[in-house]
């Protein structure tokens, strides 16, 4: 049985308040049957330095990505991962992580590809938990393996491929959530220093620049709905209900924006283009815009 949604007034303003829980809720409910707390960080060692008592670790690189193909794990491997982490299909999963839940949102998005029914974010993430002086432990979490069903991934509703983006140019709004310097294509190239491995700098024509972290408040929680609407509706010009594609460099930061648009603002068809700039900036003959202007969609994109 999934846990009851938290009745928190701060969350009621959002489209899907049941997708968020507070640190207080986690402190009260972690360890209860039917609730599994998952930590997912950018830094692969952070969990080991101390985690929410009872939390298990899911790493984006070693657990969620396929080791050979640039893709996510398949249904079999996801089921095996869930079993190893002691997660049942009917469990409520609460994800939290470092950097305003950037990677936690990525993990949540991947859980969503497999349609895990109840997966939530702990608003404010790891930093808020620590700022509030809450307990961390290095004690390993004891896990009983579960029998998680093999569920095939369903990409289409929330994941865009390169072809989808090409088809969408000029019709579906794109949000580029990288830093302004990445968006304009200005790079601080220094010889002999490794860069991010893209051959072209810039952005996908027509994409609006909204760095992902603008959706986060100082304390790492999400901004209010009114503040978010001011950014995505008033400033960017999105219309509630329209299709949107978000991208960044490898699809992690844009998962955060995907969460904001989907679960906080209630857009129904937001897709994350996880190929993102590492694919687009290396692809041959795709259009690239440089500078601060969004740029025009080319008449024929293929």
């Amino acid at each position: 049985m999934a846990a009851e949604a938290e009745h928190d007034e701060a969350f009621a303003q959002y489209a899907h308040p049941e997708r968020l829980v507070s640190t207080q809720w986690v402190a009260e409910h972690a360890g209860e049957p039917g609730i599994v707390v998952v930590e997912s960080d950018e830094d692969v060692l952070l969990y080991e330095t101390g985690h929410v008592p009872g939390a298990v670790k899911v790493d984006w690189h070693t657990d969620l990505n396929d080791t050979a193909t640039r893709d996510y794990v398949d249904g079999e491997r996801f089921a095996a991962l869930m079993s190893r982490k002691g997660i049942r299909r009917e469990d409520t999963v609460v994800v939290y992580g470092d950097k305003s839940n950037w990677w936690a949102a990525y993990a949540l998005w991947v859980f969503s590809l497999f349609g895990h029914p109840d997966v939530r974010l702990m608003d404010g993430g790891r930093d808020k938990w620590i700022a509030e002086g809450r307990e961390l432990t290095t004690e390993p979490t004891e896990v009983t393996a579960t029998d998680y069903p093999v569920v095939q991934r369903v990409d289409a509703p929330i994941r865009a491929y390169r072809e989808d983006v090409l088809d969408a140019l000029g019709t579906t709004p794109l949000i580029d959530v990288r830093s302004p310097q990445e968006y304009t294509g200005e790079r601080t190239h220094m010889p002999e220093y490794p860069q991010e491995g893209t051959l072209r700098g810039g952005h996908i024509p027509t994409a609006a620049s909204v760095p992902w972290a603008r959706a986060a408040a100082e304390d790492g929680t999400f901004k209010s709905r009114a503040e978010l609407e001011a950014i995505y509706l008033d400033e960017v010009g999105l219309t509630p209900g329209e299709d949107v594609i978000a991208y960044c460099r490898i699809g992690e930061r844009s998962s955060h924006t995907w969460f904001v648009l989907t679960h906080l603002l209630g857009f129904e068809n937001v897709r994350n283009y996880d190929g993102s700039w590492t694919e687009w900036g290396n692809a041959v003959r795709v259009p690239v815009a440089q500078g601060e202007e969004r740029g025009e969609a080319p008449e024929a994109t293929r």
Partner: protein
Amino acid sequence: MSTQHLPAQLAELVTEFHEVPEPDKLQLLLEFSRSLPELPSRLGEHPEELEQVTECQSPLFLAVELAGTGPDAPVNLFFSAPAEAPTTRGFASILHEGLNGLPAEQVLDVPDDLPERFGLTKLVSPLRMRGMSAMLGRIKHQIRAMQAG
């Protein structure tokens, strides 16, 4: 041989990482992250003398000093990274333990593929390993700049 052409104190670390079974490698990196020496106060109070390694996904600052001139001048390394970035701290700590005090010439001769030799790439991802490559690159760059200056 993954320890080929490495100074002894560095080769030892590569061997150490290879001898540890896979599940314990992260734990070993964590131990390194804990043993990164604090900045001496003269540098801690002058953060402008440190160079930021922007390729790291977390803030990392380093300073390089040469005790003397010429190829044999010992290299002193100083790193600063926050506790919330244990992986970055771990990489810095490995470089500190493996390179600190070596003659400039030997540090410059360390192969650029050093980060790949620890057998960590699979566990921590190539993206994260780039942070270590960048640190090594900047250390060498600073040594060359000082030697030229």
